[in-house]
């Protein structure tokens, strides 16, 4: 699981708006037989007979002065059983606006991006799994006033 990002913040009077572009390369493997269950800490997840779909989401987690913990979903995707389990997305823009609650993005050195997914079975438990591998992204200290986004 690998992600590369570039980023810059946008000017906002009340709340910081961050722009992130990213690449996602992920291996979510198909199972050979339906009897294996997935293991939590590895990126091995098996599309077995009881998995209807995976709801993947890329979330940014960080701390600010205002709030001890912030999590923002930047991008999500529904992967149905039968879809290509290998993701290779380049130069993706975030699907949702990355607004902070306040001005905590400027100069924030430690934004962690993680890819996680929700396993939706045909019937049964709905677990949330975090992929292994995450990327730390720093935001710059100044705002950009012009950007071609």
């Amino acid at each position, binding site marked *: 699981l690998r992600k590369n990002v570039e980023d810059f913040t946008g000017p906002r009077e009340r709340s910081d708006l961050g722009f992130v572009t990213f690449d996602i390369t992920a291996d979510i493997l198909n199972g050979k037989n339906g009897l294996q269950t997935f293991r939590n800490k590895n990126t091995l997840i098996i599309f077995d007979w009881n998995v*209807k*779909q995976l*709801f993947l*989401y890329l*979330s940014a987690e960080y701390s600010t002065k*205002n*709030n*001890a*913990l*912030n*999590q*923002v*979903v930047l991008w*999500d995707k*529904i992967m*149905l059983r039968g879809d290509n389990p290998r993701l290779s997305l380049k130069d993706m823009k975030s699907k*949702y606006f990355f*607004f902070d*609650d306040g001005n905590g993005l400027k100069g924030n050195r430690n934004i962690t991006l993680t890819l*996680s*997914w*929700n396993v*939706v*079975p*045909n*019937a*049964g*438990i*709905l677990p*949330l799994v975090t992929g292994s591998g995450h990327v730390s992204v720093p935001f710059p200290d100044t705002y950009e006033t012009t950007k071609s986004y």
Partner: protein
Amino acid sequence: AAAAAAAMLSLDFLDDVRRMNKRQLYYQVLNFGMIVSSALMIWKGLMVVTGSESPIVVVLSGSMEPAFHRGDLLFLTNRIEDPIRVGEIVVFRIEGREIPIVHRVLKIHEKQNGDIKFLTKGDNNAVDDRGLYKQGQHWLEKKDVVGRARGFVPYIGIVTILMNDYPKFKYAVLFLLGLFVLVHRE
């Protein structure tokens, strides 16, 4: 009630009911009461174990497709020890509205002391739920949450939706159930 029931059915049932003496009738009524109380106890027990005021809900809209469809049954927990995190499927109520909504958490901002405000969005919706919230409300809080979806079974909840949309169906089901318990002899 026994007479009215008898009037609706064939003579076989009629004979059965007439043959029951008073004591047996009281016994059946008590039996019925026991069943209702047990059901209530199970429901209340579930409420305690899960920490949710409504541990089982039926999905009413298509806003979480293709994961959930109308009629799917969701099992919820609402334990305080489980913090609300993005990606979770929450069932919440908007202040002043009765109908619970099942959507996914998109954004959270949590303070040191545990106060949290969060934003939700249905998987199948193009925009987040701010438009659904109360006028002037931008975030949801813990108090709005009925529970987090931990498991589900498809289709089963259709019965509840049918009963809601077609009240005659509901009365028919209840009537038949009551009749069955009263007339059935163990």
